Every structure is written in structure tokens, then in C-alpha cells.
């Protein structure tokens, strides 16, 4: 097995990890809010919770597309765009 020339940036996705930690914190706050807040405030928190759970993977794939495009990894960027397209078809269908 031969590895590509080691890149000092390979495997480091610190920004994505931090972004996911922030999204996780928002999901925790929204879900606790939906659980304990009464009335309209609880409904709003529940809506935010669902939006975060639906949006997080799409954001992650979008982030991967721009990262892979920036690094010239066009094949996998195209695959990620195709996946987003399939998911849109799935939701619409």
C-alpha cells in the first residue's frame, strides 16, 4: 500500500470539529428548551431543534464540498454535490 505524500493538513479538520461542537451545543439547548419551556417558547425551541438536526448534515456536506474544491479534490466534491442532489430528490419524492 502506498500513501500519498503526507500533507501537514491531512486529517485536520479543526474548523469542522468546532462548528459541529457549536451545532451540538445549540441542539442541546433547543432540545432542553423544547422539553421544559411551556407554550409557544417550547414550540419555537422544538422547531429550532428539528431544524438543527435536519440542517447539520447538509451543512457538513456543503463544508466538505468547498474544502475539497479548494484542495483540487474535484471527484469527491462532485460526489458530495451528487449526494446533496439525491437527498433533495429523496425529500421531494
Amino acid at each position, binding site marked *: 500500500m502506498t500513501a*500519498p505524500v503526507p500533507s501537514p493538513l491531512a486529517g485536520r479538520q479543526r474548523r469542522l470539529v468546532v462548528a459541529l461542537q457549536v451545532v451540538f451545543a445549540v441542539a442541546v439547548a433547543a*432540545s432542553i428548551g423544547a422539553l421544559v419551556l411551556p407554550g409557544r417558547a417550547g414550540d419555537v425551541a422544538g422547531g429550532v*431543534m*428539528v431544524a438543527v*438536526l435536519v440542517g447539520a448534515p447538509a451543512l457538513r456536506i456543503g463544508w466538505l464540498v468547498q474544502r475539497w474544491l479548494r484542495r483540487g*479534490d474535484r471527484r469527491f466534491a462532485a460526489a458530495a454535490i451528487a449526494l446533496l442532489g439525491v437527498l433533495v430528490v429523496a425529500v421531494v419524492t
Partner: protein
Amino acid sequence: MPAAWILLPLGLGTALVGSVGGLGGAILLVPLLVVLGVDPRLAAPLGIMSVAAGSLAAAPRQLGDGLVHQRLGVLLEIPASAGAIVGALVGNVIDADVLARLLGIVAIGAAFAGATRKGMRNLPSPTFGAEPAGEWPGTLGGSYHLGDEVVPYSARRVPAGLGAMIGAGIISGLAGIGGGFVKTPVMSELMHVPVKVAAATTTFTVGITAAAGLAVFSSQGRVDTHAGAAVVVGSLAGGLLGARVQSRLHPQAARWVISGLLVGIGVLLLVTAR
């Protein structure tokens, strides 16, 4: 609907199991909810929310540990999602009980394949000692850390893996589940991806499937946000704990844990089929 104090630990337990084994967790949570008297039409969205939350919670840890191969996940998720659409569209042509029995046999067969394999396919290599853990750009290969050593790997039989993912997707669409219990064994046993990488990568991809399913359920008004919040709070904690447990497991132990869970899932499916 069960009280929040029941839903929360259920979400925690199933998400923990799901993120350790890369099995999703809805396949465990939904039958448990139905047994507790929840209408299956309401239980399915709760299962999907649990998978989405567990996947989100596990992601930072698994990414930081270099266990998720996002290129492989994205590539395999395309046929899986396309297959899921086909499965959902033809869902009525197969009897639900026949499908449950079939899935049960698939799960037990995958467990047997994983449990009977001896040793590790991907061994640590000093050549790759300077490699940071993670995927190699532009390839379906990468490396992960096993203690102080680095284990390189490369996905094999990619066309067969893509074909198997179409099958996994069709099963997902037919049964309304994430299909992690098929995807993880396909990656580890067919494509020779290390079991920990396969489990973490599947945890990433089932989150994508779950998000799409949750969007559909939400647009249909089938999401009970109050009950869902209890499941999500538990699942966020479960996903976090599961990722920690998984990062400390030896690959051999991870394979045994996954095989045990698959047997449990298989038996559950066979028993619940009338």
C-alpha cells in the same frame, strides 16, 4: 406517549449503542416504543430523531480521532440514498413480516461473518508512523491510531461495496430505517475497512439519511417535538458517550460488540415478525 423520564433514557441507550456500533439505533428504539404502546407512525419519527441526534453528538469526537472517512461515506451514501428512494416507492410490494424476517436473517448472518473472523486485516505499520490519523486526500484510504501505533487501510472491492449499498438503501427505504446494521458490516467485511472506521463512517452517513427522513416527517406534521425533545436530549448524551466508548475499544472488541448487537437486532426482528 410515554413520559419524558422514560423516553430520555431510551434515547440515551439506543444512541449509545448506535454510535458505538455504527448501527443507527432506530432499529432498536422503534420496536421498544411500539412495545410501550406508541403508535408506529409516531414511533418512526422519534427513531429518526434519535439517529440524527446520536450522529451529531458523536461527530466531533469521531472526526477529531480521525475515525470518519468522509469521502468513503459520501461516495457510499449516494447509492444507499438512491436505493432508499426506490425502496420507499415500492414499499408496499413486500409484506412487512417477510421483510422483518429477511432483515433478521441478514443481521444474524452479518454478525456471524464478523464474529468468526480471526485477527485483524489491517495491521499497524511503522512506515506510517508520522501520519496524522484520518483520510488521505483524493483516495479511499487513510490511517487511524491504535494506541501509539498507526494503522493504514484502503477500501477494497469498491464496485461490490457500491452495489451492496444499493441493497442496503433499498432495505432502508422498505423498512423505514437508517440501515446502519447493513452498512457497517458491508464496509468492514466486504470492503475491508477497519471496523472502527466503518462504524464511525456509518454513524456519519446514517445521520444524513435520518436528516432527510426527518425533513419528510416534519413536512407531514408527524413530529411530536415535546416527546422528540426527550428522545433527542437522551440521544445527544448517548451519542457523546458512545463515541468516547468506541474510541477506546480495541478493534477486536468492537467487532464482538457489533456482532452481539447484530444478533440482538436479528432476534428482535425475527421475534416481532408474526
